[in-house]
């Protein structure tokens, strides 16, 4: 595509795409007086957030080692999703954010969802999953120090992430199934999902407590050996 060749054009695209998306989101909200507007708006708004987030990373210049470590975590997380009963994706996203920083955490979270969805099916829900998983990784990076020091805080973060992810995705479930985003409807699907949320949060905690210490040691050793 010719537009991508020169820098100006790239920058124009970078500014234009979010702008166009914002305008279309507003338009959609205006003319769709009934029906699934919430679903559409939710998807568009998250897509926008995602693009803004990801395009911000180039200027930050993640170093080659952190980038590759991110790719390693994504691969492990994606491969882990194939093992039945063993789905350590969230735990690995948290660990990667905690050990390699907030930006890498967001990258690992969002891209591991995107790539594993190549196998499990992408759809309008992908941007939502990407943003929520990305944010889980991002805040794990922000809270890196307390998470690394204290097991209880780590476990608590795992529970919170489980609840956050479930509730975030329930927004999608509600508006895609019923076409509206009434609070009562949302509350219904949240309560319906409580058992899953509990299982999910508990498994997060178990995986975190099992996986975090060895990964901390492994990465610590590499940091010492190669000087990260």
């Amino acid at each position: 595509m010719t537009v991508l060749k020169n820098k100006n054009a790239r920058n124009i695209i970078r500014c234009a795409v979010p702008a166009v998306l914002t305008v279309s989101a507003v338009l959609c909200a205006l003319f769709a007086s009934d029906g699934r507007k919430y679903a559409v708006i939710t998807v568009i708004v998250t897509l926008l957030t995602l693009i803004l987030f990801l395009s911000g990373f180039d200027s930050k210049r993640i170093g080659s080692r952190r980038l590759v470590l991110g790719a390693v975590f994504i691969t492990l997380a994606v491969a882990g999703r194939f093992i039945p009963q063993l789905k350590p994706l969230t735990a690995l996203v948290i660990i990667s954010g905690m050990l390699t920083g907030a930006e890498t955490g967001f990258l690992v979270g969002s891209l591991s969802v995107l790539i594993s969805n190549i196998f499990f099916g992408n759809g309008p829900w992908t941007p939502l999953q990407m943003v929520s998983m990305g944010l889980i990784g991002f805040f794990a990076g922000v809270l890196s120090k307390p998470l690394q020091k204290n097991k209880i805080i780590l476990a608590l973060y795992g529970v919170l992430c489980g609840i956050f992810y479930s509730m975030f995705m329930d927004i999608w479930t509600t508006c895609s199934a019923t076409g509206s985003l009434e609070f009562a409807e949302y509350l219904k699907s949240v309560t319906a999902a409580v058992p899953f949320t509990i299982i999910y949060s508990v498994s997060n905690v178990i995986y975190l407590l099992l996986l975090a210490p060895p990964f901390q040691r492994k990465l610590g050793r590499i940091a010492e050996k190669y000087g990260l």
Partner: protein
Amino acid sequence: MEILTAKNLSFTYAKAEKPSLSSVSFSVDRGQFVTVCGPTGCGKSTLLRLIKKELTPKGEISGELLYDGKPISELSERQSAEKIGCVVQRPEEQIVSDRVGGELFFGAESLGYTRETAYRRVAEVSSFFGFDLDFDKKTPELSGGRKQLLALASALVTSPELILLDEPTSRLDPVAAADFISMLARINKETGVTVIIAEHNTSLLLEHTDRLMFLEDGKLTAFGSPREVLESKPSYKVLSDMPAPVRMFFEREPGGKCPLTVKEGRAVFSGVEAENREEKERKDKPVLELKNVFFRHKRDGADVLKGLDMTVNGGEIRFIFGGNGCGKTTLLRCAAGLARHYSGKVSVFDKKITDYKNGELYINNVSMLCQDATAVFTHERIGDEFKGVDLSALPYDISPLAGRHPYDVSGGELQMAAFCRVMLNSPRLVFLDEPTKAMDAAAKKIFIDTLFEYKKKGVTFVVASHDTELAAECADNCSMMFDGRLICTCDTYEFLRGNRFYTTDKCRMTGGALV
């Protein structure tokens, strides 16, 4: 015109007591082909890492290292990336992209070349290496040799003046290694790129080498053209890294000029008389029998083993040769019960392999060491794999390695530790897949000694390998594998004498008198 100069260069790793390099001085001219050799841990890799500043490890440097008259540390990131190319030992891990094209573009993309320049450079390099046909191929589908050539090609895209290579052929089979070196020599001759290559097997390199550099414990013990080095009474250690013609010349001292290649060696040694060989009469019972074995990976895939027959007798060391992808590894996996054949019969110690239940096959009976020795280690310290074992009582004393991480020891040491771990369940039949890959001459010697020690105890070994010199030293019988079958099995001596390609340099030079 000097491109690289070192003056009293010393380097000590952070937290290390001994320096890895101590006052090394040399200079390399533009367009030269420099071979750096020496035993594992001599400082070869450290030296290369100091030249490429992106790879320089933490530690203390003293002395001078000048590139084109300027200290390396003063080169800009861009200059260093553009002017100094680098290829490392393992082809698998240095490839970044999933497509061949993407990999070739990587350097150009990183340095932000204009579209025109980038395409021109990539087009040129890929036509030279024949990657234009594989441009859209996925990188994991390439063979190991092609992967390493891809790494070299993508390093050349930025038109470097100096290429550094750290044991690039140590994980390749002999055919791929020869291809790689001849390509490298061609690039050196045609484009004038300066080459610095570290390698402990110099047999392919010597004829192209302008400067031979020998490092020992971080000290430069020899530096000069190969002839200069060899005429100055090289030490035993230098010789062990030299190719067969040179070693043989110094063993037998026939006088005259030292031959550097097999061709020159043939002129010197063609008249050597055959040694007397004692006839080995062995009448041991067969311990492993494969009859008409068929195997394929998928139901709709192609057969890998096509009606294979094999019998191995007790106490035998059997080598299996064959091209890459001929099914050697699959054969070992089937015979070790790790892959299930779909037709035919595999029996171990007179019992069908399927009759062994609950893993009893792997207790006191059979074991296997796969190609990648790191797969043996699941703990953080090597010693943890040997719980409750007296380490110093093993045939190879691994107690110095016990407290170290598997990835912190040299390739040869790791392989030996893995070998000892495999022998821990006291198996009577052991399968080894390319056990001497990444071993230098000293490590190989230790490996052979250990192998014989176990052989004395009656252990049977089946080894898949490319290393004919290793077979000449320790194998009883050799088999040739082709097209999913063993097409010939005979005594090692007969085997090597009868082959023209799968044979040792010694055998080639003496016309079969010696192997």
